[in-house]
């Protein structure tokens, strides 16, 4: 169980693919203009990552190491095609709005990175857990950035959630404030870069605070002097 805990911590925080490894920045920055888009792409990436980690882990002892990269790419590409066709069939509007970024999941370094770094060296169950946690970590960053940009940009949250989840999801749409003028920068690519920078800065600040707390706790042990007063 400690391995499970470690994998969770690595995927969600310490080694987060979005905030720490900075992998897959292209889709991360491009599609996070709204929470719905972020959720759609995050879920698609998570599915592909899960499938690819399991598949790679299954074949890891049968593939010669010289040709492992082409094999991984083939596995990932076929999984992406599956996800793309599924989205085309069931969430057509979202499929249109995500556009080229669904097929581009193939090139998301986070996926081949996990295949190479983890799944090709570990049994199926840890690989699957690693995929879920890494995928969740990526999705959470997408969601945070998407929420930030959507609130700043148009003052709403979950706008167009029905495209992803079906008609009932129209009730999810929250209007945080009414904006006559959309704050275009937040929705344009520069806003994505600024928001990403702020998120990374926030994570580093929290890490530094935690580190400081740890050292304070360690340092607070008073040293008893037994050899008389210092000169």
């Amino acid at each position, binding site marked *: 169980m400690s391995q499970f805990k470690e994998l969770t911590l690595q995927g969600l925080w310490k080694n987060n693919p979005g905030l720490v490894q900075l992998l897959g920045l292209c889709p991360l920055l491009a599609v996070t203009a709204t929470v719905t888009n972020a959720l759609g792409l995050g879920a698609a990436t998570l599915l592909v990552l899960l499938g690819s980690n399991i598949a790679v882990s299954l074949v890891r002892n049968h593939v010669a190491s010289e040709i492992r990269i082409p094999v991984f790419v083939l596995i990932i590409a076929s999984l992406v095609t599956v996800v793309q066709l599924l989205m085309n069939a069931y969430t057509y509007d979202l499929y249109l709005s995500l556009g080229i970024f669904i097929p581009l999941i193939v090139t998301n370094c986070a996926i081949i990175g996990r295949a190479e770094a983890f799944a090709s060296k570990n049994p199926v169950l840890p690989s699957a857990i690693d995929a879920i946690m890494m995928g969740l970590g990526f999705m959470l960053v997408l969601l945070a950035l998407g929420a930030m940009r959507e609130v700043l940009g148009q003052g709403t949250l979950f706008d167009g959630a029905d495209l992803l989840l079906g008609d009932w999801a129209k009730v999810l749409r929250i209007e945080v404030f009414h904006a006559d*003028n959309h*704050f*275009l*920068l937040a929705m344009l690519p*520069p806003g994505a870069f*600024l928001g990403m920078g702020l998120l990374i*800065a926030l994570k580093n600040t929290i890490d530094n605070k935690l580190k400081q707390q740890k050292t304070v706790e360690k340092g607070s042990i008073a040293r008893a002097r037994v050899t008389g007063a210092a000169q």
Partner: protein
Amino acid sequence: MSFKIASSPHQHNQRSTAHIMRLVALACLPGIAVQAVLFGYGVLIQLILAIVTAWLSEALILKLRGKPVFARLKDNSALLTAVLLAVAIPPYAPWWIIVIGTAFAIIMVKQLYGGLGNNLFNPAMAAYVLLLVSFPLQMTQWLPPLSLQSVDLTPLDAVCSIFTHYSCSGFSLSQLQANIDGITMATPLDTLRTDLSRGLTLDESLNRPVFFAFAGTGWLWVNLAYLAGGLLLIQQKIISWRIPLAVIASLFVLSAIATLAAPDTVAGPLFHLFSGGTMLAAFFIATDPVSASTTNKGRLVYGALIGLLVFLIRNFGGYPDAYAFAVLLANMAVPLIDYYTRPRTYGHRPRSELK
């Protein structure tokens, strides 16, 4: 704290940062006064809003960063950023425009990079670009000079339209922009740009009432006032003459050549020098000691680059005026310019004599 803006050997200057910043802000006063008299009092309200926002956001972020608040606030650099942004935006823009812009300039562009002296970009111009990209409509609603307006604007009207989007008598900004015939009037640069794109020649466009002599009505005097303030700064040795001269000279030469080559479609050099933000940018914005080049040769290159970019964007680009973009792009080039224009160190021979 004083700026060390020259390479060695250092000459000491008794002026503190606070003193320099205050003098630069004071030198803006003639320009601001002319703008207030000719274009209405909106600019004064924008100034107040900008300065208050700048001080509040500077105090807030200094507190967050654990720095001494009052010692840093006293250096007047936030004040100067606020003044430059307030005179650069349209005087009757809604209040939240200047608040968002100033807060962004101080918090993101200046303090997140490490505070005064560490910012890569000119804070006022980065904020201007943010506003122009985000709120294109509000950032281009310039009212014509008071003498051309069909409705008389009182100072109270300025307050009303900035805070409620409508003047006290209920006119919206786009109604105020229209002349007595109901035709919307824009800035001289904007008007010229639109006319040229509609196939009119330069002479036909210059007959419109927003133009006066060789430049825009009102804009000519605003630019002359900033020129006077800038010359005062040079006389006081607050800024070096190199950057303003290079900006003005390169814009002058390029537009002179272009207007000789295509007299019907490119405005002459005098029009370019006395329209839009030329004088303000050349003397007050491009000379920012933090983000500009610091070597003597480099300053000439930096200024000339700004002039070139402004000429290109005004004549071939997508915006009528371009100082903010030009200054930011030149800011990016500054490390490279400084690297290649390092002055000879005292006691060393120039590289060419070594062989």
